[in-house]
């Protein structure tokens, strides 16, 4: 949608909080722990379907005409607001739900212990990525969306309901963020700073990959993950800045990211 969306971090946090509290509440009522994975997914779906359309219809849709940078600022303002909404609803104390994580146990690879839950994370991520790629490339809605992004005016002239496409896209994108948050929740303690941290990281990922490119984002995510793990293993002091170093290096040599989409110059 050509929106650099800071609110994405909030959806990640919202997903994590919703997943943590709903799963926690249901487990306390005696739900079998094996169902908790479905609940994680469900709570992500719940928050994104409620909050995303509210933001898109209520505020963002009036802003599309503005400059990319101004839209970024608007999402930043929304991000600030949502941060406090989260604090108002869930308070500032951390939440834990370890059940989905502990339930599966772990296995050994050579000498390393590896929890099964992380395999689920990888599986969910691949499923989401593949699903998104399939949707964009092979379904009617996805193809329409690509057209809308490429040229809004022509799409509208062709009879595409652009407003509805925007609503779907924003909601779906937020859903993915919420799923990310929901499935990460069992592995961390859910605290208010969650959104702030994840959003700069995901910016690094998409910028490395090239804005608006799906394979780019996937590659960027793998790169950031590997570089970060390598840094933690070999040179713990470098953990934080090495990601941004990679980001700066990629931008220095490929100013628009690795998988950039060519754009026409307008004179």
């Amino acid at each position: 949608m050509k929106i650099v969306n800071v609110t994405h971090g909030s959806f990640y946090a919202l997903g994590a909080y919703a997943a943590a509290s709903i799963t926690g509440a249901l487990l306390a009522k005696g739900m079998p722990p094996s169902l908790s994975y479905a609940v994680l997914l469900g709570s992500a779906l719940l928050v994104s379907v409620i909050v995303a359309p509210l933001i898109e219809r209520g505020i963002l849709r009036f802003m599309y005409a503005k400059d990319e940078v101004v839209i970024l600022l608007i999402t930043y303002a929304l991000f600030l607001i949502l941060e406090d909404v989260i604090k108002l609803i869930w308070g500032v104390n951390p939440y834990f739900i370890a059940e989905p994580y502990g339930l599966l146990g772990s296995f050994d690879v050579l000498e390393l212990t590896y929890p099964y839950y992380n395999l689920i994370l990888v599986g969910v991520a691949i499923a989401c990525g593949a699903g998104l790629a399939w949707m964009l490339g092979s379904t009617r809605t996805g193809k329409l969306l690509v057209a809308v992004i490429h040229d809004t005016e022509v799409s509208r002239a062709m009879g595409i309901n652009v407003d509805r496409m925007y609503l779907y896209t924003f909601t779906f994108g937020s859903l993915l963020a919420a799923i990310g948050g929901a499935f990460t929740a069992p592995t961390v303690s859910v605290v208010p700073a969650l959104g702030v941290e994840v959003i700069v990281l995901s910016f690094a990922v998409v910028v490395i990959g090239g804005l608006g490119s799906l394979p780019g984002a996937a590659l960027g995510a793998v790169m950031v993950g590997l570089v970060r793990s390598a840094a933690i293993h070999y040179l713990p002091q470098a953990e934080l800045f090495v990601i941004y170093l990679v980001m700066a290096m990629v931008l220095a040599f490929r100013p628009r990211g690795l998988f950039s989409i060519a754009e026409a110059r307008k004179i």
Partner: protein
Amino acid sequence: MSRDRTPRTLGLILLALLVFGQFLPQWTLFLVTVALAKGLVVLGLMILLRCGLVSFGQALYYCIGAYAAGMLGRLFGASDVFTLMLAGMAAAGLVGFVLGFLLARYRSIFFGLLSLAVSMILYGLLVKTEALGSTDGFHVLPSTLFGLRPADAWVRYTVLAVALLVAFIAALLVHRYLGTPLGRLAPAIKDNEIRVEYMGASARHAIHVKYVIAAALAGLGGALAATTVGHIDPEMAYWTTSGEFIFITILAGTGNVIAPFLGALVFGVIQTVAFGISPNTWQMVLGGSLLVVIVFLPNGLWSLFRGRKLA
């Protein structure tokens, strides 16, 4: 063109604040001084914004300025407030000059994101540097003025007076700069860069110069903040600090050099009041006011004073 009234207005504000500053309660003096420090950073961002560039990493220079000032006091025992500020400004300006070669090639969102990346690199470095206090940062020695230390009751006022003087000079110089051909190139670059090149001017050079000025101003603001607050930590380079500066820039608008300081003051007041009323939702108030400004005052608070379009 109408007569330029900005220098006179600036001078009047300076005099008024210098005279009435003595009677203000201590906490307002602190508020105004911090606002002046942030105003300096925003002044630099305003120069960049005039050519359509939004730097999401201005906290980098703010932090460099603060750390340069703090380390000068730590390593060499320098405490003169002007020396510290010059050091902060020089350090930030130098880094800005070097990075400018890279950043002046980028536009729109990529400029913002690359500057963000660079500031986060500094944050990552500082957080892991234990010699500089890691995440806790360290205390800055109390500063002196020409080797003298004012009496306790007058410290805040003296710092404010120095800050006012520095801000006045900076604002005046920037105002002069905006009137030069190089300064006037900014709106042209924003409108259509390719045409600027056709006219024979180098957009990249113009942006580089602006970038260095903005960096130096941010360093100055950082050094001022360090001496005022008396404590520095890596949080000064975090992206939320940059976000705050951009927030003020948008709040203020790019109409005039007075706007950034006004914006910073309004921001400080909103923050203080919102924090006082409801400590848990002050960010919400800030976010809300930012939205209101973007929607209803696209040219910032300054457009309240001048309805007509400014150059």
